[in-house]
C-alpha cells in the first residue's frame, strides 16, 4: 500500500453505519476522507447517527457529518490533520476519474443498486489498468441485531455481484386473491389499499409517502376495511402502517458500531499489509439475536459472475 500519509478513503453513506465508519477512520488517523450521501437528516436517524442533532434535521447528512468531525481537529497520520470532504449527491453520478483517486472505498449503504454500481466501477478499474490499479471495496450492512461485512479486492477476490445470492430472499408479497377477497391480517388490508384501491381512486397520480393527506387517507381506509372484515384494528397505528408501506427495518447504534468497526479493521489490515488476499476470510456475518454470534469465511469467486469474469475483457 501507498505511504500512509497519502491515504485517502471514500465513504459511501453517512447514515448509521456511515457515522461510525467516519468516526473510526478519523480516529485511525486517515488524513483525507471523503463522504458521499444524498440524504437529509430525519428525526428517526437520531437514535444512532451520533454526528447529528435535532437542530440539524433537514440538512445534508454528508455536510453535517463532515463539519462535526472537522471541528474536532483530529491529528492524523504523517502529522496531517484529518479532513473530511462532503459530497451531497447521488453516488451513482460520481465519475471514474473521481473514484480512481482513492486508496480504498468503504460502504455503509442500504441500497443494493448503489453497491452494485460501485462494485462494477471498481472491477473495471482493475481490469482496464491490467491489474496495476486495484481499489479494495469494503461493504457493511446492518438490520436490527444482525449485519455483515464483505471485503472485496476487485478482480482478485469475490466481488459484490458474486455474493448477491447470499442476500436474504425478498419478503414474499401476499397473493392478490387473499388481499382482495380474504384479508385476514392488517398487512393484507394495507397491501390491498396500496396496490389496488389507491390506483382506483387516484388514477392520475402515485401515492406520496411524504404527504400527510395521503397517509391520512391510508389510515382512514385501513381502519374502515379492517372493520369490514372484522380484523383487529388495534395494530393499525401510524408506526405500523408506515413500517409496512416503507418496509422500514429496525436499526440500533450497537449493531452499527459492530459492523462499522469490522469494516474499519479490514481497512487497517489492508493499509498495514496485514491482509492475506485469498486466504483471509472476506465475509463476516454477525447475529446478536440469540447470544452473540459471528461467523467468517472465504467466499469464493463465482466463475460465471457477469461483473468479474475475466473473459469479458
Amino acid at each position, binding site marked *: 500500500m501507498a505511504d500512509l500519509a497519502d491515504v485517502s478513503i471514500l465513504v459511501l453513506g453517512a447514515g448509521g453505519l456511515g457515522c461510525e465508519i467516519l468516526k473510526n477512520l478519523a*480516529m485511525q488517523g486517515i488524513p483525507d476522507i471523503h463522504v458521499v450521501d444524498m440524504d437529509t437528516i430525519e428525526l428517526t436517524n437520531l437514535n444512532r447517527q451520533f454526528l447529528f442533532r435535532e437542530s440539524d434535521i433537514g440538512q445534508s447528512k454528508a455536510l453535517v457529518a463532515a463539519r462535526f468531525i472537522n471541528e474536532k481537529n483530529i491529528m492524523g497520520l504523517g502529522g496531517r490533520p484529518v479532513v473530511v470532504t462532503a459530497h451531497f449527491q447521488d453516488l451513482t453520478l460520481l465519475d471514474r476519474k473521481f473514484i480512481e483517486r482513492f486508496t480504498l472505498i468503504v460502504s455503509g449503504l442500504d441500497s443494493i443498486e448503489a453497491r452494485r454500481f460501485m462494485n462494477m466501477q471498481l472491477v473495471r478499474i482493475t481490469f482496464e489498468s491490467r491489474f496495476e490499479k486495484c481499489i479494495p471495496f469494503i461493504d457493511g450492512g446492518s438490520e436490527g441485531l444482525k449485519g455483515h461485512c464483505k471485503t472485496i479486492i476487485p478482480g482478485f477476490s469475490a466481488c459484490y455481484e458474486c455474493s448477491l445470492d447470499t442476500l436474504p430472499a425478498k419478503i414474499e408479497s401476499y397473493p392478490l386473491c387473499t388481499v382482495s377477497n380474504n384479508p385476514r391480517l392488517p398487512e393484507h388490508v394495507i397491501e390491498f389499499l396500496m396496490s389496488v384501491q389507491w390506483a382506483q381512486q387516484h388514477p392520475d397520480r402515485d401515492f406520496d409517502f411524504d404527504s400527510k393527506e395521503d397517509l391520512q387517507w391510508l389510515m382512514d381506509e385501513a381502519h374502515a376495511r379492517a372493520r369490514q372484515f372484522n380484523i383487529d384494528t388495534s395494530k393499525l397505528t401510524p408506526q405500523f402502517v408506515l413500517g409496512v408501506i416503507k418496509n422500514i427495518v429496525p436499526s440500533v447504534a450497537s449493531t452499527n458500531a459492530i459492523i462499522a468497526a469490522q469494516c474499519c479493521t479490514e481497512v487497517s489490515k489492508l493499509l498495514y499489509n496485514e491482509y492475506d488476499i485469498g486466504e483471509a476470510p472476506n465475509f463476516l456475518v454477525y447475529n446478536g*439475536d440469540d447470544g452473540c*454470534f459471528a461467523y467468517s469465511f472465504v467466499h469464493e469467486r463465482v466463475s460465471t459472475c457477469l461483473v468479474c469474469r475475466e473473459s469479458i475483457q
Partner: protein
Amino acid sequence: MDKFDRQLRLWGKHGQLELSKAHICIIGNTLLASEILKNLVLPGATKFHLIKETSYVKSDCFLDVEDLKSINEHAEFNEETWNAHLMGNQEYWRYFDLIILTTRDVSVIESIRCLPMPPMLACNWREYHGYACFVSQEPHFVTECHRQHKSPDLRIDKPPQPLLNFYESIKPSQLSQEQLNDLPFAVIIYHALKSLKENCTKIDRSSLRIEIRRLHEKTLPGPECLNFIEAERYLYLGLQDSEIIPDNLLKCFSLASSECVVPFNSMFTDMISSLKDYLKHPSSEHQLPLSGLIPDMESSSEMYNAIQEAYLRCASKNLNTFADIVTSHNASVPLSQIKNFCSNVQNVRGVVPASHIPTEQDCRTVKQITPAAAAILRKLVKSKHELETIRPSFVESRDELRYYPTCSLLAGIVAQEAVKILTHQFVPLENTLIYDGKAGQVYRVKL
C-alpha cells in the same frame, strides 16, 4: 414519529422504559468506556455513574460528556473518582442495575473481584483482540427472546377442551367443495388425525399426508387449494406431543431454584414455580398456557376470524387460571408481566453467566477447548494500561491508531449485551466472547 422508532420495532415501549430507567455504572475512564457510553446514550439510557481511576489519564476520546449531553439532554452523568475504601464494600454497588468494567487498573479489579456485585459486563481490548464477559451471581432469564422462526403453537394433536369444541364444530364430511377450500390448515390436520385415530391407523408423516390428500381429493377437480398445500407443509404440527415441555423451559425450571436478587429474575422464578403448579391444575390438561397467537392460514376472512377467536378465548382462559396461581405466590407481579410470560412461555430462556471476572486461571481451562482463544484471553487479562496512558501527540503513537476499530467493535458488543441484559429481551452472551480481529474470528467460551 418517535426518535426511537427504529429500535422500538425491536424491543417495544416496555423495553425502552426499562432501558431509560436503568442505573448503569461504568468503571474506567477509558476509550472503551467512552464508546460504550455513546452506544448507550444513543438508544436512550439516561442514568449513568462513571468511576474514574486515579492512576492515569487517558488519551482524547471522540465524544466527551458534553457531547453526550447534547445527544440526550435528559441523560445524567454522575462522575466519581475511584475510592478503594468506599467501593471495596458491596453496599456501594447494590443500587446499580448493571456494572460495566472497562478499567485496566489491576488494583481496581482486584478490589471488586470478590464482592457480590449486580450483573456485570467485564471487557478489555488490545491491538486486534478483545473480550467481553457477562458476570453474574445468578442466572439470567429472558421472556421475550424474539425467535425468528417460532413453530406455531396450535396443539392440534391434543386440543384443550375450548379448542376441541371449535374443531368438532366443523364437519368436513358435510362441507361443500367451496367450503373445504376455506378450511384453515389446522382444521384439515385435526380432522385428518381424527380419522386416522378412528381407523386405528398408525400415525406418522406418511399416513397423515395420505389422509390430508384424501380430503384434498374431494375438492378436485378445481382450482389449486393453497390451504391443502399449507396443511402438508405444516403436517409436522400434527405429529407433535403438546404435553412435552421444551428443553429451554426445563433449563429454566432447574435454574429457577436459585435465589435471585435482580427484580426481574426473582419475578421470573416466581412465575416458573407457579407454572409447575399450573401444570398440575386440571384445566391445564398437562399443557403449557396457550399463547393464543396463530400464524396466517389460507382461508376466508370469516373462517380465520373464527379460529383466531377460539385460540384467543382459550389463551385468555389459561391466562386467568395461571394469573390466579401467580398472584397466590406473589401478589406483586404485574398482570402485564404474567401476560407476557404466558404468550412467550414456549420460548423463555435461562442463561448461566460467568461467576467471576476472568483470571489467568480461566485461561488454562479455556486452553483445553480453544487454544487460540486462550492465548488472546491471557494477553487481555494481564493487559495493563499502557495503551490508555496520555499521549504527547497522535503522531508519535500512530502505530496504535490502526487498532481503534477493535475498541469500537467491542463497545458495540458490550452496549448490545447491556441492552439485552437490562430489558430481559433477546438472549445475551453465555458467557464470554473472545474477538480476534486479525483472523476475523469470534470465539465463545464458558468460564
